[in-house]
């Protein structure tokens, strides 16, 4: 069995933002349940010994953990490459310097839209102006800087504008990722799923930006799978490359795996990472090809996409072993076709784009559900 290459550490579910497309589970982990610093440091050491190269520190908002610098230092000591995925909220110039000093390799800041009011409306919090200032501080350090744009129907028409605005922040890399429909994003899908025509225009905008920024900014883009012919190779295949540890120490094969009934997630408080990778039932469940139904089982693409996403299969069909309905060969592909058709008729971008945040929220009350905070 190959070893995992990356560890996603969801170190907390606490977050000052309430983004409507958040991939966190609807049931969030409370602060009291969070792993202690020493547990995380041990896990990083075990990950490195297991062959993991990259550590993605995420959440919630990882800055909510006061011991973040200690964790980054621990990751560096364990020879892991550390990537901080953050909103940047609450990150002062001084704290950024501490994180860099501790050995941070890469910082990734997400942006919600190009205009202040609308960006804050999507995030459910005032955050946009601070991010712009933070970008300047980041560039004064020798770390990699990625800006991340989550694209959906409410901002897709502004994509060109967003790219142009973010270009001015001089990132090394731009991640243009369409929202993926799990967690809060699935809850809000009818407000977020773009139409086919919108997607086609967005693809052309990204292609033009790639051409223009070649050698300056590396662009990585993720197409929404609802509009694809074949499913995505979710997590590079179940239990093949990645491990995710949630704030309470449960080891999951992917962000959304908690939705699949009957899976037991072993905890790093009780087992080593190596043991979990080899033996945990949750990791073995959809590893390899034995679980595959037809048409996957005899399909040439099974080695490329591994039958698609198990969580999506469950969320949309009620059966985690079904072929991902995104696949045009899937028996239940009509579920996706229906969603694309029906969701597209829901009202589109608000007309008060330039309105301040509080006006937008008031006028659009009930339009979608904001991600909540974990219970105390």
């Amino acid at each position, binding site marked *: 069995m190959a070893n995992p290459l990356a560890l996603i550490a969801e170190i907390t579910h606490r977050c000052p933002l309430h983004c409507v497309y958040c991939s966190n589970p609807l049931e969030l982990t409370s602060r009291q349940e969070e792993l202690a610093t020493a547990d995380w440091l041990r896990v990083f050491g075990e990950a490195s010994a297991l062959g993991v190269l990259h550590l993605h520190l995420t959440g919630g908002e990882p800055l909510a953990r006061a011991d973040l610098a200690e964790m980054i230092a621990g990751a560096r000591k364990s020879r892991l490459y550390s990537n901080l995925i953050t909103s940047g909220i609450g990150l002062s110039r001084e704290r950024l310097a501490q994180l860099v000093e501790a050995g941070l390799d890469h910082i990734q800041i997400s942006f919600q839209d190009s205009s202040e009011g609308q960006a804050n409306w999507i995030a459910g919090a005032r955050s946009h102006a601070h991010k712009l200032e933070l970008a300047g501080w980041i560039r004064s350090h*020798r770390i990699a800087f990625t800006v991340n744009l989550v694209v959906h129907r409410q901002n897709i028409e502004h994509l060109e504008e967003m790219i142009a605005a973010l270009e001015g922040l001089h990132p090394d890399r731009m991640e243009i990722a369409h929202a993926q429909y799990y967690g809060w994003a699935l809850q809000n899908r009818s407000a977020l799923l773009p139409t086919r025509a919108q997607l086609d225009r967005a693809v052309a905008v990204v292609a033009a930006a790639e051409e223009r920024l*070649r050698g300056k900014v590396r662009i990585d883009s993720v197409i929404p799978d609802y509009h694809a012919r074949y499913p995505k190779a979710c997590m590079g295949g179940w239990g093949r490359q990645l491990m995710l540890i949630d704030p309470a120490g449960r080891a999951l094969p992917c962000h959304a795996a908690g939705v699949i009934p009957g899976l037991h997630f072993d905890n790093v408080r009780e087992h080593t990472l190596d043991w979990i990778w080899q033996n945990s039932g949750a990791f073995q469940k959809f590893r390899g090809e034995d679980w595959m139904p037809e048409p996957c089982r005899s399909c040439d693409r099974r080695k490329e996409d591994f039958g698609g996403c198990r969580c999506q299969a469950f969320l949309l069909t009620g059966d985690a072993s079904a072929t991902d309905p995104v696949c045009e060969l899937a028996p239940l592909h009509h579920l996706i076709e229906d969603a694309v058709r029906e969701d597209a008729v829901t009202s589109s971008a608000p007309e008060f784009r330039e309105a301040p945040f509080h006006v937008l929220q008031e006028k659009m009350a009930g339009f979608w559900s904001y991600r909540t905070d974990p219970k105390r």
Partner: protein
Amino acid sequence: MAELSDASFPKFAAGCRWGGTAEAPVVLFPEGAIRVEGTGRIILELCDGHFSLAEIVQKLETQFILAPKGKIRADVLTFLEQLHAKRIIDY
């Protein structure tokens, strides 16, 4: 894209560095890693900002004396330009 010339000093871009183990070194960068062996490793070990492209080529030519004239320079150029497009090497 910046021009790579004999006077350029290639070096790792911000956030790119060596990782892995001494037996199996890798170059780590945002969201990825490449395993480098043989000549690729020799070239990248010289990309520390202290050697110009001309010096790197010269060192390799001393090491691989049987390579046809000009081939090493062309290969190094292609290799570094590819890594530059991926934002791994700056010059």
